[in-house]
């Protein structure tokens, strides 16, 4: 278009002219081009963090709606709404407005449930994202800052979730609030002061719901939003890390440009996250506060649990033995202090400082843009699995009464199983994980050295049976492969090097005519050598149906750096 104009580059179309006007004022052309050209690595695990980001967006949207109807007040009112079993019961205005939101607002229950499910998904995806970052070593220099921000986000999201499910002031969350109060009270020296500052006096007072509400809708989300912004800004500035593979080095990013591929996929993911939250929000009931009833300090129900992400604290509180440390002069450190303040303190401190610890221990302070496969760092992987086991035992113990009830196990036995499991299981898992990592590493090396097991058995003239191995590359005089391990997945089956040709397309059923594909492939070369001769890029054969891990390189072509 511009080419045909009289003056070179003069826009002739309306849109073109408008774009020119725009850039003349805001000078965005260069920025926009850079943004659209930014390359994102194409690996499924890089989308875990995006799930968290999009659930946060859903939370902001739905949460704003909920504030239109919620009354964060502990003033006592008598319920007179649609839900008959509670009519005439005195309750707080907060609980009453939650009931109103659920029964007397058109679609209110749907949005309330959507919000709650999005919150559960938010924390769950944060943990999944954290695990990805941890096990692939993405936290190493230069990304320690983002790791710290991430851990902060994680802790804040727990607080945010707790405040969120507590403000309806129902019997379940009220019980949780009472325990939360105890946790604060258990802090030595300043506990009682903190408790009185939070509750404005003795428990429960008239203030706590209002304070938690403002923390839930303003303070914590504000900090979350700012930190998420910073998290992303640093990410863009530092560019993505990537898994090792063909053509991937410490100084480049291989993948898709932002527009259109990545943008479309990312946008699709947003809608998928929103859709899952909405689907769960309508189809699966969550936190039915009308069944719990209004909070009353004298009432309680069996199977009182916090939402799953606080479950590890509930579990540690249940498992911790009855140890109270008394000091002379009638002072004491109460039992709940250790499992609910000290233990999470240690856990999150270790988590936050892990990059620095690893740097100290391995003396590896270099910058890393290439990720590691978990098996290649057995110590870290095993330590992570150990920590995860510890966490899981705590979470499961947080619901041990429900498990005991549903599976007819003795409650006391569940507690003891948790206590013993918490100490014994992590080291066992460490050893097992370590052995698995070594085994996998060993097998990678073996395949690189001896080639892929083809399953073809050959009988030699002197009667010996051998299995034919397909070398992955050039071999030396002894028939041993010369390829070095480059940190990328090593193909272990003939399909992965094109030995079985490509699979018929189609997810649930074939969408291609097998005979047609067969004909097409007759014309092509066959096997590994053909793939190499044609210079066919194995990077592109990442389909699981074609044997590769999604989008990881088929096999390493160059050693890492």
């Amino acid at each position, binding site marked *: 278009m511009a080419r045909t104009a009289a003056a070179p580059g003069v826009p002739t179309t309306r849109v073109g002219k408008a774009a020119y006007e725009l850039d003349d004022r805001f000078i965005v052309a260069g920025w926009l081009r850079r943004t659209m050209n930014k390359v994102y690595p194409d690996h499924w695990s890089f989308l875990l963090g995006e799930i968290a980001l999009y659930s946060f967006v859903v939370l902001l949207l739905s949460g704003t709606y909920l504030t239109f109807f919620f009354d964060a007040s502990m003033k006592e009112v008598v319920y007179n709404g649609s839900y008959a*079993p509670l009519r005439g019961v005195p309750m707080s205005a907060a609980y009453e407005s939650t009931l109103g939101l659920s029964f007397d607002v058109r679609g209110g229950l749907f949005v309330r449930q959507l919000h709650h499910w999005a919150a559960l998904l938010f924390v769950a995806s944060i943990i999944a994202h954290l695990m990805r970052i941890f096990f692939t070593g993405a936290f190493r220099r230069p990304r320690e800052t983002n790791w710290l921000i991430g851990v902060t986000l994680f802790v804040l999201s727990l607080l945010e979730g707790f405040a969120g499910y507590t403000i309806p002031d129902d019997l379940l969350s009220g019980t949780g609030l009472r325990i939360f109060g105890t946790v604060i009270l258990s802090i030595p020296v300043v506990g009682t002061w903190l408790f009185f500052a939070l509750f404005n006096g003795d428990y429960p007072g008239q203030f706590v719901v209002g304070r938690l509400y403002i923390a839930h809708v303003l303070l914590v989300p504000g900090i979350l939003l700012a930190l998420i912004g910073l998290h992303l800004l640093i990410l863009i500035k530092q560019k993505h890390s990537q898994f090792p593979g063909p053509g991937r080095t410490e100084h480049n990013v291989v993948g898709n440009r932002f527009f259109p591929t990545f943008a479309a996929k990312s946008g699709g993911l947003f809608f998928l996250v929103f859709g899952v939250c909405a689907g769960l929000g309508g189809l699966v009931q969550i936190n039915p506060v009308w069944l719990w009833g209004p909070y009353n300090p004298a009432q309680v129900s069996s199977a009182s*649990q916090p939402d799953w992400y606080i479950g590890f604290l509930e579990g540690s509180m249940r498992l911790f033995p009855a140890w109270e440390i008394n000091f002379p002069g009638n002072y004491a450190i109460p039992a709940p202090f250790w499992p609910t303040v000290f233990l999470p303190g240690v856990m999150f401190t270790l988590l936050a400082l892990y990059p620095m610890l690893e740097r100290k221990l391995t003396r590896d302070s270099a910058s890393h843009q290439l990720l590691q496969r978990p098996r290649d760092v057995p110590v870290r992987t095993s330590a992570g699995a150990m920590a995860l086991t510890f966490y899981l035992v705590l979470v499961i113990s947080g619901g041990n009464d429900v498990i005991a009830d549903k599976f007819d196990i*003795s409650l006391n036995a569940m507690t003891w199983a948790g206590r013993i499991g918490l100490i014994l299981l992590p080291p066992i898992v460490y050893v097992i994980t370590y052995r698995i990592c070594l085994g996998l590493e060993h097998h990678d090396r073996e395949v690189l050295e001896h080639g892929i097991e083809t399953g073809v058995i050959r009988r030699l003239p002197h009667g010996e049976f051998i299995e034919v191995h397909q070398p992955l590359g050039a071999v030396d005089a002894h028939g041993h492969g010369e390829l070095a391990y480059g940190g990328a997945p090593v193909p272990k089956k003939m399909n992965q090097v094109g030995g079985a040709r490509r699979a018929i397309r189609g997810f649930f059923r074939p969408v291609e005519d097998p005979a047609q594909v067969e004909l097409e492939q007759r014309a092509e070369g066959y096997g590994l050598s053909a793939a190499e001769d044609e210079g066919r890029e194995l990077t592109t054969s990442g389909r699981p149906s074609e044997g590769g891990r999604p989008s990881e390189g088929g096999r390493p072509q160059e050693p890492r750096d």
Partner: protein
Amino acid sequence: MSTPNHPSEAFDENPGTARRLLAPRRHAPGSPVAAALTRRRSKRRRRLTNVAGLFAGLCLMGALYTTIVPGAQAAGDTTTAAGTAEAAGQAIYNRTCISCHGANLEGVPQRGPSLIGVGAASVYFQVHTGRMPLARQGAQAIEKPPVLSDKEIDQLMAYVQAHGGGPTLPSGDLRAGDLAQGGELFRLNCSSCHNFVGEGGALSSGKAAPSLKNADDLTIYTAMLTGPENMPVFGDSQLTPDEKRSIIDYVQTIKAQADPGGAGVGRIGPVSEGLVIWVVGIGVMMFGIFWMGSKA
């Protein structure tokens, strides 16, 4: 019939004492005991299909029981029928209960407690829910389909009631109460063991408070009245019959009530919700991102 072993005044023979203590009771003490067997089924349909059988049963039971409980009101001319029921009940007792509860209901150490003074209500609860006869000694009796027929249970009740008296079956509409008040009482007295919605819950060392899912009105009523196994007793002075009816009304309403928010996932709150978000939520998302990350 005297109750020398029964420690409670609430069920004393003396009608005057009883009336004073049970002042809030609405129904007249002398109402026909036949109506006591108005077993309200939780499922209306089943109730309709059974209405004929129920009616026949009611007539029979009415004939059997008019004279038995409470003894003070027994009419003289039906003693024969009562005696027959008692005798039949004794036969059943000797067949199914005697090995643990002794020849004269006095109980056998390490096996079973004394049944003197436990009353018809207790028999109804234990036998109707299949807890008795006991399948095996364990942490607690297990609920199972009743071994005895309704008629046999009635005869057994007559026999036990005749030996030491005790709480009897209530009469009238067992759900005639205040729904909201029932909810408050349920949350104060019952939910601590039986959960917010009657899902049941674990107790210490392998014992458990049962789910109220299959409990009918009379079962709940008799359970409150007699405090079976580890459940505390809620006598009529502690929870008046009206309050018991309110609680039953609440429990049955909540059970029958639909879940407005979709699938209830057991109505046990955060544990099942956590499971759903990891299995369904994260599951679907993992499926999605695997699909996105793979190349076409």
